[in-house]
């Protein structure tokens, strides 16, 4: 008699059905978290990860201190000379810019505009390259008074992103250059308001009609009473068949090397 029924077929079918049920349940749970933007585990995982991130920073800082002992006197002297020259150049530039900045602030004050910003210094705990999302973590959170939407700047002038999630002692920052992110910016010097789209890796693009004059080196800023530079135009792409031009611009800030940021807290 031909055996159509084999015990192994039934058990492997059961295993397959079990797996399907598990995958479908997982998909439903993830979809719920995604749609509601609420993940009950995010606080817990951040709480566990935070000491590791801070530990890494401490180890790296110690490593930099120790590495100094292994450098030759000649290389240190050479680097010292280059850096001293650079400091003199930057001091001169800073004097001029300081004067212009002061004049700008005085004019704004005369016109009755308050330009004081409440900024909170934050250390960068993780780098954006840890994930494809274009996010990084900082070491200030709810206990420092920051909130979702607060802008994050580097060196007081270069805006990089905004606070996306806030935890007790840490916060997640989403870069404006995250793929597909859109932000309103002003093109300098024409002051034209445009929409910039993030392309990842501190890169952006803007699509404009061909007739609008744009040059490489022009700045794009966030329209605000205080100057906040988003990026500098690097390339302008014009195809003969198209009535548009695509402006590619990039933030001058490389987040891989940034250690400190300022969070501008809206009062």
């Amino acid at each position, binding site marked *: 008699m031909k055996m159509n029924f084999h015990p192994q077929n039934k058990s492997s079918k059961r295993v397959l059905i079990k797996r399907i049920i598990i995958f479908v349940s997982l998909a439903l749970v993830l979809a719920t978290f*995604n749609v509601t933007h609420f*993940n009950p*585990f995010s606080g817990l995982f951040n709480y566990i*990860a935070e000491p590791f991130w801070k530990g890494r920073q401490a180890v790296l800082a110690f490593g930099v201190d120790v590495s100094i002992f292994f450098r030759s006197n000649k290389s240190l002297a050479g680097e010292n000379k280059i850096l001293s020259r650079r400091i003199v150049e930057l001091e001169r530039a800073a004097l001029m810019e300081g004067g212009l900045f002061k004049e700008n602030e005085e004019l704004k004050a005369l016109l009755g505009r308050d330009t004081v910003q409440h900024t909170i210094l934050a250390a960068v705990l*993780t780098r954006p390259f*840890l994930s494809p*999302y274009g*996010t990084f973590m900082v070491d200030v959170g709810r206990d420092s008074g920051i909130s979702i939407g607060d802008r994050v700047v580097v060196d007081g002038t270069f805006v990089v992103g905004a606070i*996306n999630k806030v935890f007790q002692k840490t916060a997640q920052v989403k870069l404006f250059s995250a793929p597909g992110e859109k932000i309103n910016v002003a093109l300098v010097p024409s002051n034209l308001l445009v929409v910039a789209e993030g392309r990842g890796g501190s890169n952006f693009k803007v699509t404009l009609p061909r007739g609008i004059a744009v040059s490489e080196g022009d700045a794009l800023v966030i329209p605000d009473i205080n100057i906040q530079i988003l990026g500098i135009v690097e390339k302008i792409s014009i195809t003969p068949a198209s009535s548009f031009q695509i402006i590619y611009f990039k933030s001058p800030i490389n987040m891989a090397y940034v250690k400190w940021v300022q969070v501008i807290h809206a009062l």
Partner: protein
Amino acid sequence: MSLWLRIVMNIALAGSILFLPWWFTVLLATVHIFMFQAYEIIVWGFVADTLYGTPIPAYYNIEFLFTLLFVVLIILAIPLKRSLIFY
């Protein structure tokens, strides 16, 4: 021995999520799934997404890219391992 190796791989995955580029994490997870029947990479994917995930327009606002990718990896690995002479 293989249990210890599996534990080491899990620790390496955790470390990769916390400190190393995301493509290295994916590579490590791929190696892990081919070394073992490692369904736990889905958990690690969920951890990575919970730590770093956010809706991104270019990715259709899906916050669980790592989790989905690792599920796909597992689904692909099962029949592939059966057909590979190495196994």
